[in-house]
């Protein structure tokens, strides 16, 4: 039995003379989906998000067909033809102190070096797409880990109460007391400096698993606490007490009474946590403690672009815009999902 079902009355009013107005009961899921479909901003965001994901997935295709260069090898000596003219990819600098080289700027043509080259002569546009894959993948995976673990912890704590709850809550408190950022940094430093060996599995410092794991862990208290709160209040709700009263087993109560009511709130968290994860990943990568070379992510590309900030700003500008747009769509989607699934929630945004 669900707490939040709604009934829509059939518009064909009262049947004359006899029975009651026909009530078309709509399950909460159906209501939510309907509301979401009607939210144009949310749908638009979903589409944009889909396009971005698609573009990033097509990175190898782009690299091969449009860019023609390998975005992961340096290309210091080459030259390309732009607008009929042949230009070197890394030309001696004419600005600033006149030292070093300045990579080629955006060509404006849909071909190699559409957005220019970075300090190592690599095609920025191609790297942008490859980096996007990693950024999106990390954010999505971290979100998944976070939500699964947080729901498990929160539900167990709220469901069993007592000592288990106290212990888990204390752990969550301590974890939460760390400014998220510093926790992520600490874990990153420590883990990135050697190869982790967990049983037969070896996780090198270049692996993406580490950032995923760290970002996933760091947000667990943020989700687990509200879930725990909700489960606790559910446990004292009348329909749950009724289930206990008729002798339902713990598993049954958990699966049929508790979880179905917790799931909407978890769904609301999904886009929001993903937005947060993206931002943290970009920050960690920017500080060189997130994604490690040779892998790229939008954060690492911004770092690449830092030395070129004043001469070739596009290298740092483009990934930032990519992040901003993706996070924006996730936030708008998050608002829409929240309005559709759980309008009374006070889930904090970012």
């Amino acid at each position, binding site marked *: 039995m669900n707490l939040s079902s709604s009934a829509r009355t059939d518009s064909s009013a009262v049947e004359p003379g006899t029975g009651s107005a026909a009530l078309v009961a709509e399950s909460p899921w159906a209501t939510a989906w309907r509301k979401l479909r009607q939210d144009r901003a949310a749908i638009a965001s979903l589409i944009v998000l889909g396009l971005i994901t698609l573009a990033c997935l097509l990175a190898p295709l782009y690299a091969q067909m449009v860019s023609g260069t390998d975005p992961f090898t340096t290309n210091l000596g080459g030259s390309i033809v732009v607008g009929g003219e042949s230009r070197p990819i890394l030309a001696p600098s004419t600005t600033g102190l006149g030292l070093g080289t300045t990579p080629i700027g955006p060509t404006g043509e849909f071909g190699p070096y559409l957005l220019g080259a970075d300090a190592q002569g690599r095609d920025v546009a191609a790297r942008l797409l490859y980096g996007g894959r990693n950024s999106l993948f990390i954010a999505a995976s971290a979100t998944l880990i976070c939500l699964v673990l947080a729901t498990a912890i929160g539900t167990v704590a709220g469901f069993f109460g007592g000592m288990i709850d106290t212990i888990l809550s204390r752990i969550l408190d301590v974890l939460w007391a760390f400014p998220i950022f510093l926790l992520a940094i600490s874990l990153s*430093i420590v883990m990135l400096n050697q190869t982790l060996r967990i049983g037969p599995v070896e996780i090198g410092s270049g692996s993406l698993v580490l950032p995923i794991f760290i970002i996933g862990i760091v947000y667990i208290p943020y989700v687990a606490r509200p879930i725990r709160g909700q489960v606790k209040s559910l446990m004292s709700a009348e329909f749950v007490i009724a289930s206990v009263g008729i002798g339902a087993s713990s598993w049954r109560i958990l699966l049929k009474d508790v979880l179905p009511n917790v799931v909407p709130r978890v769904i609301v968290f999904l886009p929001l946590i993903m937005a947060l994860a993206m931002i943290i990943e970009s920050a960690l990568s920017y500080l060189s403690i997130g994604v490690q070379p040779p892998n790229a992510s939008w954060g690492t590309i*911004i770092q690449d672009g830092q030395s070129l900030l004043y001469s070739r700003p596009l290298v740092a500008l483009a990934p930032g815009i990519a992040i901003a747009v993706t996070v924006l769509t996730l936030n708008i989607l998050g608002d829409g999902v929240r309005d559709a699934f759980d309008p009374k929630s006070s889930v904090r945004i970012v």
Partner: protein
Amino acid sequence: MLYALVARLGQMVLVMFGISVVVFLIFFATPGADPSARIAGRNASQETLQQVREEFGLNRPLPVQYTLMMRKLFVTGDLTSFVNRGQLVIPTVLRAIPITLSLVGGAAVLWVLGGLLVGVLAGATRGSLLDRSLMVVSLIGISMPVFWLGEMANLVTQSRLHDIWLFSWVPALGYVPLSEDPWGWFKVLVIPWCVLATLYIGLYGRILRASMIETLQEDYVRTARAKGIGERRVMTRHVLRTSLVAFVTMFGLDFGALVGGAALLTEVIFGLQGVGKLTYDAMLTLDLPMILATVIYASFFVVMANFVVDIVHMILDPRARDVD
């Protein structure tokens, strides 16, 4: 109420203890490399390593190590950086605090005012064009990574548009102490303030708006209107006052986190040697003693902030005072 306070204080101590244990475990007990190498820094000689082992009791059981470390940090205060030889860690952190405070304090003023303005305007005119525009702008503000925004700000003010009157006064990146040159201090901090505040104005504007909309549905607002006290009083004394509780408690937590070093990206981008930058530099050079000190400082600050926020919450909302 007194009982609740004492209980919170006790809880706070417990949490701080827990944090110190966690930090210790992260840096001393993670499986892998030799902790002494991590403390001594890279390229340390054998003698240094031996010395480190002695000092930190790395041959002895973990609880002893923990006690020794805590003593060095708090009691004797002689924890030194092994990377910058002989640099005492604690005084360095203390010197960095005013810088972080200047940055976060100024940004906080901006974001509180901005957040209030956005939240009240949007909440009171819900559904209007003003409301929707403010919300879109807020969303954009939240979605930009702060470090990237800072870089873009630098690009514009230091390079591209530096020559026009609007930005020609922007000094080079770095910090100028207030005591030395108030005007210089101000000039150096204005752009960082704006960058840091952007994210938070967006965030707090949205939170206040949601809070106000929720409060406007409450029965007691209708009662207040029925009393004939005037719409303005209803809005300020009944709606805003109750909506502010969430705003204020969240502000306390964010402020605490930022002063604790969460503003590190902004500090790095703008060359301000605050606690955050200290953490970052220590991290790049793997200066473990410094990292230990800054992370523990940051966490303690957050816990303190939590505590203060709880007290303020109790003051602002009488319902919170009688909770067991």
